[in-house]
């Protein structure tokens, strides 16, 4: 019974994260997202400490921009959530030379 409850909770956890607000209000995220990403990337890649909802993957999934056909736009597209701002402020972002810039289309 307890195991079943845990299983359900585990299955629902990603949904809860997805439905939740961003990690911080937009004004704060604009200023601090690079620090959050920088901190978490070392913890995740080197120690395997992955905080649910804090992965780049989670950002991408929530902030996806879709074209008229419904397909997620890639990082090279100026409409991409990260690219739109980074182009404007002329700060290059190299995350997407290794990370995918669009959500995996299969339900995560």
């Amino acid at each position: 019974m307890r195991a079943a409850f845990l299983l359900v909770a585990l299955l629902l956890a990603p949904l809860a994260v997805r439905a939740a607000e961003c990690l911080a209000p937009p004004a704060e995220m604009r200023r601090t997202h690079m620090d959050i990403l920088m901190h978490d990337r070392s913890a995740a890649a080197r120690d395997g400490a992955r905080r649910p909802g804090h992965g780049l993957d989670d950002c991408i999934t929530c902030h996806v921009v879709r074209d008229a056909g419904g397909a997620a736009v890639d990082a090279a597209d100026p409409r991409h959530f990260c690219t739109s701002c980074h182009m404007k402020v002329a700060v290059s972002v190299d995350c997407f030379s290794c990370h995918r810039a669009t959500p995996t289309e299969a339900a995560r």
Partner: protein
Amino acid sequence: MSAGPTRRGLLAAAIAVAPGLFLVANAAPRPPGSAASARNRWDLLIDTTRCDAGCTACVDACRQEQGWGGPASDGPWIRKIEAIEMQTGRSVSLPLMCQHCAEPPCVEVCPTGASLRRADGIVLVDRHRCIGCRYCVMACPFAARFFVDAEVHDQRAATPRGKGTAEGCTLCVHRLDAGRLPACVEACAGGAMLFGDLLDPAAGISQALRARASTALRAELGLDAAIRYQGL
């Protein structure tokens, strides 16, 4: 050859002294946000007598899971090789991948600290720090480190890969951290791959290692590899 088993024996004995502390369910996912722990040492035991020469299920599963195998230059993170004993002509088929050494040469030569050994024994590349010097590719005695020389698109979400960085088998850390088995182990049709925690004396792999002789590849190098083979 002699150093490995002795060390393992000592570790097992150390754990037997304080079983209550360490005998947690190793297969369970770690609590969210917690780091890999030195209380685990992930090991893979490959029984070559059950490995079919014509079967590439592990290789296919790895390629599918991790997303390598696009350009021809993509290194096979795992590959099937045939080992032939010169004196007798006896041939053995086995999968070869990063051996996740306890004393990894790739980590030793890395000038930036990108090549690393996690607390639970998994050897990884932190691509954030990798400058693409390829020292690790040359240092690996198993030719299990590779260099990505072409742009990569449509990576797997759990496996970032990019041009100019080194890469290799991760023992499927993303699955492991979620309490799942590596893709190759799950795909192995012949039951030739046994995965588990070496530091858990009750784990199937610890029992199997105690019951039958096994060896590490290039054992003479004293690297204390986490991947061990039977029937060589």
